[in-house]
């Protein structure tokens, strides 16, 4: 049988998460009035649950693999092997969005997100994608600011958006 290192690792991660929650729970005060149920009881139950589940997952992983899991071979799932570039481009888009949102503003952040996700999905026309993202981002911005009265950061485009009365 082929070794599947991911399953034991994920099982142990759940187990460690359970232990971490248990430690966090121990630091919570227990005072719960006369009912005896303080803010630490539910966390204790969740911690116990995660630890038991982690052990159960680990047992399955080490005794023939998780039961009824999807095939490990991407081809058997009708998919291609893990495409690093695609995953990275989508992630880059989301990180850029986080960094740009407050400074450059909503419209530019969404345009960059749009262009890099499209790049991740194999688009070879970054300028068209950026323009499309700019247009969609602008539309959403106007809709939220004008119609929903939700404030979105205008950022670097403030002079232009402001001049347009938005």
């Amino acid at each position, binding site marked *: 049988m082929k070794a599947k290192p991911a399953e034991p690792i994920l099982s142990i991660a759940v187990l460690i998460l359970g232990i971490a929650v248990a430690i966090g729970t121990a630091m919570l005060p227990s005072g719960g009035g006369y009912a005896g149920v303080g803010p630490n009881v539910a966390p204790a139950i969740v911690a116990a649950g995660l630890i038991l589940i982690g052990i159960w997952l680990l047992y399955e992983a080490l005794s023939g693999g998780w039961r009824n899991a999807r095939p490990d071979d991407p081809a058997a799932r009708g998919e291609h092997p893990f495409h690093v570039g695609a995953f990275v481009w989508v992630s880059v888009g989301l990180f850029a969005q986080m960094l740009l949102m407050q400074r450059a503003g909503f419209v530019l952040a969404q345009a960059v997100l749009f262009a890099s996700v499209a790049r991740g*999905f194999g688009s070879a026309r970054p300028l068209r994608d950026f323009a499309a993202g700019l247009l969609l981002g602008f539309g959403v911005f106007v809709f939220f600011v004008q119609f929903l009265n939700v404030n979105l950061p205008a950022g670097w485009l403030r002079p232009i958006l402001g001049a347009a009365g938005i």
Partner: protein
Amino acid sequence: MLETLHSLYQGFAVALTPLNLFWGFLGVTLGTFVGVLPGVGPALTVAMLLPVTVKLDATGALIMFAGIYYGAMFGGSTTTILLNTPGESASIATALEGNLMAKKGRAGAALATCAIGSFVAGTIATILVTLLAPMVIEIALKFGPAEYFALMVFAFTTVSAVIGSSTVRGLTSLFLGLLLGLVGIDSQSGQSRFTFGVPELLDGVDVVVLAVGLFAVGETLYVAAYSSRVEEQIEQLRGSLWMSKEDWKRSLPAWLRATLIGFPFGSIPAGGAEIPTFLSYATERRLTRYPQEFGHGAIEGVAGPEAANNASVTGALVPLLTLGIPTSATAAVLLGAFQNYGIQPGPLLFQSQPDLVWGLIASLYIGNVLLLILNLPLVGIWVRVLEIPRPLLYSGILLFATVGAFSLHQSVTDLVILYIFGLFGFIMRRWDIPVGPAVIGLILGPLAETQFRRALSISQGDPSVFVTHPISAAVLALSLFAVILPHLIRHFRRA
């Protein structure tokens, strides 16, 4: 009975005001548009469109959500049939025969039987909701915290342990959701839990952020990594949208049977819409007079599961409205929407805000009609959405989905949390851990904790209260049974 009719009449008076009718119309249209997008299921559709309703009053918003809910499901079926990519597990059964029908050039009839079947099943199920809800309330008013807690535990076990391919992975997802539900200030003691000094976490994790993270970001990461280079085949929309006499004769019994199968599964909290759709598929396959067509695009095989899905989803509104217990990820997001308006569904809501509840129920009837008269004629437009090149389609999904999560608090912290949930969603999708139970755990966990503590403070700390109350004891026993049963069956089969 008369009282129910009167309440319903009042409800129609609320739902049929031009403005509310407009919100319903907008909801169905937006819901269908977003629901058509591949990989976007109803739960994500509702979460994505939540911010759009911020300016509406509670009644208008809920009416719009009823439309979104139905629209999202129809949109999902369209994609399922033409693209063979079920957006959610409840559409898998529809995909089996639906895509084959499309391949045979009968996509029109397949979509028609879906739309009309949804209308028939949805309307019958809504009538059942109307009749059942007042009865459930009579019972629910007698429930104490112990009974509520037991019912919530039952909902937890059915959504995580019964459905899906593995009990333990369902529980993994559920407990991750429960853990996220703990984050924030404990409502009873004022103690902050698991916030790590991040002020944005004091309010807890928002269900929209979790749903968008798991369903939109996680899904996009997954598709990018594993199938962005796979050629997709969209079936053309061929064949008449009118069903032949033969089609009607074969569809109608399937719709009706499926409604009877689907409704109870939704309303009892028995684990969502997946099981009844497959049950309906199996039933139609056994009863059909054309067994040779199954596996080559039999219309009963589309009509049944689709109607079962709709009946079950509508049935899920019974526990949601009368008990405040969501039994699917979509219902959980809807409950989150209710909570945004400070509304806690339950028996008391029917007394304190009858206009709102009955307006919502009336709008379900209207939503069904709107769906039928709007969507079938417009199906050509929805199909166009699928023809957008995939890079632009997925960029667009992520662009709109992240707006929803960001606009809630205009906080970059939410975007960071969103990406973390996206990674979780990716891992869960890849290693076959269902994501639905996590969403339900997040929203239902804190409610269950509240009932748990209430029950214990009434009994002055005596935990036997959960087993000495007969209803609570029975429901808890049933929950235990639900977890163990699948394993027992497997054990005996092997023996």
